[in-house]
């Protein structure tokens, strides 16, 4: 079982690279959605069966895999933009950086001991790597949508880590992660709509009138 979990985690990492490497927003949204589904499946693998578990799996797949992607795709359609033009960090560089960060994540993780029951699992490096890739997207892309996607990646990373605690302190983790996601992304969605109304584009490089000169 745990082997499978690890493979899924590796899949998550690959999806990170997919998000980093593509310029097409729709594609990266799908990638993130897929990642969400994978994350939804993960708990079922690592934890013994319980109704609570079922609830989690269902909830996560629903939110991460369906609700949020749809919300974002809507925004994309409304603002009709397909691609992220001239990103702050190019695609090749961001792939390279992504690789470096992933490596860093593994190094960090190796420094930190795991609880016996989690020995040999990739959770920690995977979560750190995903977190940093999320950061990378946030730092490298100019469009509001891309930044939301980056935020989602970060969330996924945190969630992966949360899975380690899922049985130790059940309510807390999901509550945190879901609330964060829901609220964060939901409000961001609203704001994005306002932005596209105000600026008739989602290019946040336009959103730089407030500065010191």
């Amino acid at each position, binding site marked *: 079982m745990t082997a499978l979990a690890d493979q899924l985690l590796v899949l998550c990492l690959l999806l990170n690279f997919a998000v980093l490497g593509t310029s097409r927003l729709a594609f990266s949204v799908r990638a993130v959605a897929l990642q969400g589904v994978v994350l939804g499946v993960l708990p079922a693998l690592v934890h013994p069966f319980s109704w609570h578990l079922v609830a989690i799996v269902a909830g996560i797949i629903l939110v991460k895999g369906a609700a949020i992607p749809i919300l974002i795709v809507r925004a994309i359609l409304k603002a009709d933009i397909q691609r992220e033009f001239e990103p702050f960090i190019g695609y090749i560089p961001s792939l390279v950086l992504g690789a470096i960060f992933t490596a860093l994540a593994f190094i960090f993780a190796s420094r930190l001991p795991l609880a016996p029951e989690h020995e040999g699992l990739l959770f920690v490096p995977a979560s750190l790597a995903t977190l940093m890739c999320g950061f990378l997207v946030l730092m490298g892309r100019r469009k509001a949508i891309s930044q939301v996607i980056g935020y989602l990646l970060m*969330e996924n*990373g945190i969630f992966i880590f949360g899975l380690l605690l899922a049985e130790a302190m059940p309510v807390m983790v999901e509550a945190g992660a879901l609330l*964060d996601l829901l*609220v964060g992304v939901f409000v961001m969605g609203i704001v994005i709509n306002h932005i596209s109304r105000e600026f008739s584009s989602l290019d946040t490089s336009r*959103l730089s*009138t407030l500065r010191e000169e």
Partner: protein
Amino acid sequence: MYLIWIFVLLPLLGALVAWLIPDNRRRALVLPVVAALHLALTVTLLVQTPPPSPDRWIFLDPLGKLSLLCNSILFFVCANYAVGYLKLRRKRPNRVLCISLLVCLSAMTLVAIAQHLGLLWIALEMTTITMAPLIYFNRNARSIEATWKYLLICSVGIAIALLGLFFLAYSTIVAKQEVTLLLGTLIDTAADLHAGWRHAAFIFLLVGFGSKMGLAPLHTWKPDAYGEAPGLVGALLAGGLVNCALLALLRVYQIAVASTEAELFQEVLLGMGLLSMAFAAVFMARQSDFKRMLAYSSVEHVGIIAVALGLGKGALFGALLHMVNNALTKGVLFLSCGNIHRAYNSKSTQFVRGALRRTPWSGALFLAAFLAITGSPPFGPFVSEFTIVSSAFVQQNYWTAALFLLFLAMIFMGMASTVIPVVLGKVPDDLERTPYRDTAPTVWPPLVLMALVLMLGLWLPESLQELLHQAAGLLEGGR
């Protein structure tokens, strides 16, 4: 016990009522009513503190009391100000505003009473979210931009904080203890948590809450948000929200002090605090937008508090006192400068001149509050700042003291060169006519706050000193 729950629910109830009331004018009146009730409840709770809830998730300890007191007073004043303010902005629908304000109040209350870090975190998240629509009150390009930056940066910060919490929890697992995020338990077991995870946790929590508090260089959202939000929202951001984030940080601080690595955590705080003051000093020089200037002043004072926490010992008292003073004084500054902004319909020092003539009361309040916030006697901040400096000397930490004073002086120059032209001088003749005049509803709330600040500078009530000492005791690792 149930009293406390009423305490959290009351504002939510108010929010519901506000949602139901159709009419703008009457809806505004909900705010002062709820605020008054809340203040009354606060006082009663301060007088006779209920015991912790059986699961020890909820307890009003001295630290909580302090931040609750500030927030409640500040909110009371802002709510009363809001009535007059919303009268001026009749055209704007204020449903969202009222609701978010009230929800935010309940969240702030929850922050104060939460003893479970998870709960604390959720409440903090709530405050973050509810502030977003308030910043967007003016509904223009600039405010949407400000909101976006605020939201993005704070969400990232809060997410990092969440990860930090997870690390903390995991460190308990690794240390083979029963997993919990209850403050008390963590403080007890802090020493034997796993060092590596604990380190990571502290750093992530510091960065997370720090970005919400506005420690440099995580403060980047502040000038935009404070600059674009209405005055009273600015007051709540700089007073209320900062205090909430600070309280969260203080909880971490408690754990850090109980653990073995207090020194390191304090070092980091000291460094970031001085850095924040330096940033403030740089950005306040020749600042042409006096609302943004206030934002940087807020960065500065967060920095001062961080420095005090970094110094520890005697400075802790000063830090907590400064938390109170800063909140109240910032209230005066934002409300009065909101009035000036209304009167001139601009917040640039090019156009805003001679406020003392155009709006005598707001101008005078702005000037007085400027003197107060820069630590001149006989106002409150002087007491706290002097306490901090002198304890830096007592610890023979001369470099800190020297830098501290240097930055204070630079900041004073910067602020003076912005505030004095705004307040003094002739009112420009080509001033666009605005209906705003200084009237009681928009003037007395800041006036009351100013009186409080003055009082704190001349006389700290015994009870308050007692409370501060208890709170400082908690920070020194007491229980």
